[in-house]
């Protein structure tokens, strides 16, 4: 290829259109990834930060730190506790909403309401409801006749309380996505199943489930990733307590960076989290690859 055709082949003014977006994305979303690697192998005060090269010691500090493992355990507990319930409930509700129901619009709006409201305001409301003498325990006492726990002050109940609240908050988002997936299933397939004499249960497992598997996969990955990044509800409701029972990874990162000003260690932690999230996405992709049906 000669020089002339190289210049003719491309439209060089394209760069003018790309420039605003590229400048921001490169400066604030791409360079920081490399920069955070540099920070994670240094240590020092806020002003003379890059004077001291400490190699991988920030990483070994994190990995051998018991607080990291508490946070890791709590995060896994949160993810395993919330994601399957979230998927099951949202798929269930979406299936109910897909049955040519009256007032579909109204239900969709109601289920979606918690999604758009800010997690901070909602956390204050749930914190109030979770008080020992709060409405949650009143309702539980009314239904079961037993006194409820002091949810957020109890090392055993604090995490389930946060999980319940988060499932409530995020449910509507996945309902909408599942509903869209269900509506993409061609009605002719249901008719065919009916003619073949398949019951509801069989129709679900043999028609609906395989056809919405891309949606289920999408929801699973997105909720796992976002659950690993849970922060605001912990910050607002428990402050990581009681006794670190709700200190999740991002809360630990916030403490390292914002409270203790250990930026190198915080960066190392952020990278470890990145690798974990990347790994999980990759594994989920591999495991589900041959079970997801794209058409």
């Amino acid at each position, binding site marked *: 290829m000669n020089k002339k055709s190289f210049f003719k082949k491309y439209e060089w*003014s394209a760069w003018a259109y790309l420039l605003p977006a590229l400048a*921001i994305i490169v400066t604030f*979303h791409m360079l920081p990834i490399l*920069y955070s690697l540099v920070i994670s192998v240094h240590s020092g005060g806020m002003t003379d930060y890059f004077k001291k090269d400490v190699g991988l010691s920030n990483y070994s500090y994190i990995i051998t730190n018991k607080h990291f493992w508490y946070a890791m355990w709590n995060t896994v507990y949160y993810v395993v506790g919330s994601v399957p319930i979230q998927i099951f409930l949202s798929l269930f*509700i979406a299936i109910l909403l897909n*049955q040519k129901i009256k007032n579909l619009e109204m239900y969709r709006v109601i289920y979606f309401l918690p999604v758009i409201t800010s997690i901070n305001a909602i956390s204050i*409301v749930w914190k109030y409801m979770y008080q020992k003498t709060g409405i949650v325990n009143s309702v539980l006492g009314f239904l079961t006749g037993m006194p409820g726990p002091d949810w957020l002050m109890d090392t055993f109940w604090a995490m389930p309380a946060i999980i319940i609240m988060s499932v409530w908050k995020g449910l509507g988002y996945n309902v909408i996505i599942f509903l869209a997936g269900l509506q993409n299933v061609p009605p002719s397939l249901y008719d065919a199943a009916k003619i073949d004499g398949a019951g509801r249960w069989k129709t679900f497992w043999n028609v609906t489930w395989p056809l919405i598997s891309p949606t289920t996969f999408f929801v699973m990955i997105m909720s796992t990733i976002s659950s690993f990044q849970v*922060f605001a509800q912990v910050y607002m409701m428990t402050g990581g307590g009681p006794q670190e029972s709700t200190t999740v990874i991002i809360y630990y990162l916030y403490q390292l960076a914002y409270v203790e000003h250990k930026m190198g260690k915080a960066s190392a932690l952020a990278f470890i*989290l*990145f690798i974990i999230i990347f790994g999980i996405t990759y594994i989920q992709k591999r495991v589900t690859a041959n079970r997801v049906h794209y058409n």
Partner: protein
Amino acid sequence: MFKSIQMEERVLKSIIHVFLISGAITMLAPFIWMILTSFKTKKEALDSSIIFPAQWIFGNYTTAWNSAPFFQYFLNTIFVALVCTIMQLITSSLAAYAFSHMNFFGKEWMFGILMGTMMVPQQVLLVPNYFILKQLGWLNTFLALIVPWSAGFFGIFLLRQFFLTLPKDLWDAARIDGCSRFKFFYKILIPLSTAPLMTIAIFTFVGNWNSFLWPLFVTNDQKFYTLQVGLSNFSQSEGTEWHLLMAASTFCVLPLIIMFFMAQKQFIQGIAHTGSKE
């Protein structure tokens, strides 16, 4: 036989409605409780057996509003969210135009790299961006809240996909009529793309309005606090003044709820769209 199937259908429909209604009540109950409590006295708020306030105290709202500079928080939040949204629309549509209509060196390659930025969790960017903003002298300014979120791959991707669905002859016809690249962009492409632009606007605005960790990190001056940071500060300083906290929570969530009711179709379609695209 026919009758029993009809009966079964009817019973099933009722069961479905029972499930959906109890679900809807669970979704609404915290909001209702928040609003009811916001009108109670401090004493009533501490006793959950009292459902309705003896007297509806509207003064809780003014007390809460005046206990912290909420007016300032609102102004800051609206300003940041609006500017971010407008910038995001401009940067993404320009970049999407280049990716969909132009041929430039390293196009596929760059698109792939940009797509990779979606994989990176925001928290990884927190510490390095703190240093970058510090070097720029932007900490505790609106620039720190606005500029880093004025562009993103999500918007570029969504718009590129949409631009690619438009007929190619459009540009050929316009070119014959002597239309320039840029004129084609703002005279033809943009007016045709209101639906995806609306989706991006809603996502950016809501995301900014509700964003918390980022403003918490880059501002520590009340002058620049956004609503979420201000509210969390208020909640820490008020402790168990639940009636005031519920009043503050109510006026903090109200604007988005009103916006949602006005544009619920766009909200829901936008989300359904992102889910089915991958």
